[in-house]
């Protein structure tokens, strides 16, 4: 069998860690090859090696049977390797065509041959059924179309080998469906695809073969057709994984959080990003706000937690109006918040773990005495949480948060928020970017909090999570609540239609 790309016995070391330990990846021409692994398993490192961002210590790379040395992304382009990054690398105030051409401009006497470029883009877009509007600005088009722009960018550079890094994270079910179709079409045209993901269903759906990495080591390559999802998960995690979240039915009690006609206006965009939303979250239930990224969920949470000003409407916590409270006052009144972006909001990365664990409570009597921090208490507190929540780190309480793995950073935040023991726990995409083991753990914690009689408000983009964990679902679209569902009586498709705005229930 002919391999178009072979990465043989790649070893890439970072200080203290072998990110890739003797990993072999062989990509056949015209196949979709999934690269599966937990976070920190070394998938990104392996692809960075292929893309020329890292130089491996050992091992060889062969493209079309010839041994090559790739030292930077331009080399990779020359060999026909292109990458669709998880976070799109597009210039927002450039048009689609300009973005595609950027960095690969054809010129004549120093002038851009732009018309030729547009023609080439249109040809490509017809050939691969990648519908884009070349003259719109990136900021005006949907996320799905932005992704198509990224794909066209690679095709424009005549890439034969396409790397997709977690491409479905930001898409609706329908868009995912569409992307899967595009990927299959691409392989029909002779392109070869490496798909980096930890979503097993997608692998099952499109991939031909799947290579699994675990902790930097190569575990094996399997034919997807003959392998069950459970088997692949086990290869990835190294043990059996429980997919179905065990939980009893919710027993909702009194209302903890009441949001009444909440509106948040973004003064820069001059539009209401949250429009007239009302809902209640009760003790003993997990209420989930579902929706595609950027439909006002972030602002809704920011309004509830005090990070953003409320334009109109009221927020009541246990019957008290907390609309105008500051973040600190809301924290003290009983709001815990697992933030969406753990690096931006959740942690001070250059602080140690123990310092991060007291981020909102350092001023409490327990941790300070007349303005001086009580380091012994802080250390005790950290040790307790590390033990209770199984936070793993190199140097225990004094590890700098930056050097911890994503899963453990998230565990630290979850530990901190749960330990504050408030009535309302808001979790925004708590499992984002985490591996199966950590996701399982965090879901269990959320359910445990629910069972302990707290109100849990979960904001999630992952429909699996929405359907498995929550007890009640509200779908947000363009800042409005467009429908409320019982997870037992709905399915991905129905939710997807509401999330994409093509359906709404009139309240």
């Amino acid at each position, binding site marked *: 069998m002919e391999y178009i790309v072979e990465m043989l016995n790649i070893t890439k070391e970072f200080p203290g860690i072998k990110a890739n330990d003797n990993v072999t990846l062989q990509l056949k021409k015209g196949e979709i090859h999934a690269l599966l692994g937990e976070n920190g398993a070394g998938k990104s*490192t392996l692809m960075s090696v292929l893309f020329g961002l890292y130089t491996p210590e050992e091992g060889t790379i062969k493209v079309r049977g010839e041994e090559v040395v790739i030292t930077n992304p331009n080399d990779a382009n020359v060999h026909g390797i292109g990458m669709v990054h998880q976070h799109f690398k597009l210039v927002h105030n450039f048009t689609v065509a300009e973005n595609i051409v950027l960095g690969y401009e054809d010129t004549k006497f120093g002038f851009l041959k732009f018309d030729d470029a547009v023609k080439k883009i249109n040809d490509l877009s017809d050939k691969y059924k990648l519908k884009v509007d070349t003259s719109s600005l990136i900021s005006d088009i949907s996320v799905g179309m932005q992704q198509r722009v990224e794909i066209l960018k690679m095709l424009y550079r005549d890439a034969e080998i396409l790397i997709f890094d977690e491409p479905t994270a930001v898409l609706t079910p329908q868009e995912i469906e569409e992307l899967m179709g595009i990927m299959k079409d691409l392989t029909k045209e002779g392109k070869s695809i490496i798909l980096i993901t930890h979503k097993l269903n997608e692998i099952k759906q499109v991939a031909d073969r799947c290579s699994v990495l675990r902790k930097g080591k190569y575990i094996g390559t399997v034919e997807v057709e003959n392998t069950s999802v459970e088997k692949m998960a086990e290869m990835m995690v190294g043990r059996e994984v429980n997919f179905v979240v065990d939980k009893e039915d919710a027993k909702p009690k009194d209302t903890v959080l009441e949001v009444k006609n909440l509106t948040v206006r973004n003064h820069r965009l001059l539009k209401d990003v949250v429009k007239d939303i009302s809902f209640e979250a009760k003790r003993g239930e997990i209420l989930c706000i579902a929706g595609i990224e950027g439909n006002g969920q972030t602002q809704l949470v920011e309004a509830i937690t005090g990070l953003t000003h409320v334009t109109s409407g009221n927020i009541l916590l246990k019957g008290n109006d907390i609309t105008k409270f500051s973040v600190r006052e809301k924290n003290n009144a009983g709001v815990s918040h697992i933030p969406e972006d753990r690096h931006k909001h959740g942690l001070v990365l250059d602080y140690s773990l123990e310092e991060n664990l007291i981020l909102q409570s*350092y001023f409490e009597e327990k941790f300070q005495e007349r303005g001086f921090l009580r380091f012994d208490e802080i250390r005790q507190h950290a040790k307790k949480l590390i033990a209770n929540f199984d936070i793993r780190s190199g140097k225990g309480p004094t590890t700098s948060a930056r050097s*911890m793995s994503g899963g453990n950073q998230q565990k630290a935040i979850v530990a901190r928020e749960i330990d504050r023991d408030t009535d309302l726990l808001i979790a925004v995409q708590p499992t984002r970017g985490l591996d199966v083991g950590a996701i399982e753990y965090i879901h269990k914690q959320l359910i445990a909090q629910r069972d302990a009689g707290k109100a849990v408000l979960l904001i999630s983009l992952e429909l699996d999570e929405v359907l498995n964990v929550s007890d009640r679902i509200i779908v947000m679209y363009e800042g409005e609540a467009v429908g409320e569902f019982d997870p037992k009586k709905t399915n991905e498709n129905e939710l997807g239609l509401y999330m994409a705005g093509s359906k709404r229930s009139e309240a």
Partner: protein
Amino acid sequence: MINKFKYEFGFLPLFILFALVAPLIFDVNTSTGNIIYSTVLVVILFSYIGLRFKDWVVNNIIDAVFYALLFNVIFILPGFFKDNETLLSADRFVLIVMTIAFIIYKLVGKLKASKSQRLSENKTLVDLSGSVISIIIGLLFGLVIMLIFNPSQAFEGFWIILQGGFNEGFRSLGNTIYFAVPIILTGLSVAFAFRTGLFNIGASGQFTMGAFVAIFIGVKWGFIADINPLLHWFVAVFFAIIAGGIWGAIPGYLKAFNNVNEVVSSIMLNYIAMYINVLLIKKYIYNTAYNRTYDILSSSETPGLNLQHLFPNSSINGGIVVAILTVYLLHVILNKTTFGFELKAVGLNKSAAKYAGMNSKVNIVKSMAIAGGVAGLAGALTYLVAGKFLIPETVILSQGFTGIAISLLGLSSPIGVLFAGLFFGYLQQGGYYLQLLDFKPEIIDIIIAVIIYLSALSLFIQKFVIKGLKRRDDKNQQSEVIEGSDV
């Protein structure tokens, strides 16, 4: 409860009790009596500080005793020895030996404090070697410049620069310290703001405001000296700090509440301070005969604290004590208090600080006010000296800008800034003695500027240090694999 007893109910009353009762029991004015008196007081005080802050600067009774001995050697003994040159020399010798021994002891302790086996994760080692290497590079560059301008005397001149503050023994050492004081303080000002994520480029303006207010009070408010001669200096310094603090708080306020970039607003305030300074000098304290400010009254001069015996014929005064106290105070604020915890969080990650409910706006104002106050203090200590004047000319005083370099060289840590400032003073003394050779004064300034400039590259050099150390570490533990890091 036990802690409270240990701290407040234990040490402070002990301190006050001894301070009051001891003079009744024995004569504290004899040399032995005085030494015992001060030793016991300093030991109690430092033991308290050590237990209270659990800090590497003072962390056990040995440290406390050491500081007490050092206190005697510097401030008490020279007073008794002042007529006997042999004893004074012996005292200086003891001082040098003690200081060097103690710095080595502390350094080794701090280097060993790192829990990591890996050298590249030892922050102290990385910081220190970064600074040392960049200083060496700076010095070599200085040598190159000397070779270009005056090749025949370059090596001789380089040797003089290396000798720096030791060119004339304790006299030049005293001058080193004297010149270092304002630089240490402006460096602290920049460093403190920097820890809150602010770039205080306006230290010069704050310095100027502090300087003017100090001189004004030193010249005009002689009535305070009539109440208590010591009070005059304190009042002058106090209002200088306030003036600098206000001048720092203005850009802080604009930054926090109107999102005006503090770099722009504080640079502009440098000019405003400069012109206000000229205006006010000419209006209130202008000595037209010499085109400068009037002499300050002797009661407002910075006290000498016996240092002039130890450092004969030098300009040294008690300013260094104030500077060191400020260094330690800011060190404690940054590392030991909830306030410092907030400030650093705001500096490192503003969004996370906001998420955690910290009021970053107020913290920005506070941080800039403190930074300004420290720069104002620098202005006061520079000019509350006999024979120092402000001249009403439209030039921005350079100390604030030097402070930026010192802050970089000291890696924005108060203790680092202290040593960086002393290093600068040391070089300046070297430059002073370089005039013995055929070097133009401007060239000397250029050489020093180049050395400081390159020395401030320590952050850049650190990257290479880390790389080198990592290679070593990896060799040492080739087969070990540590899990759990995102790549």
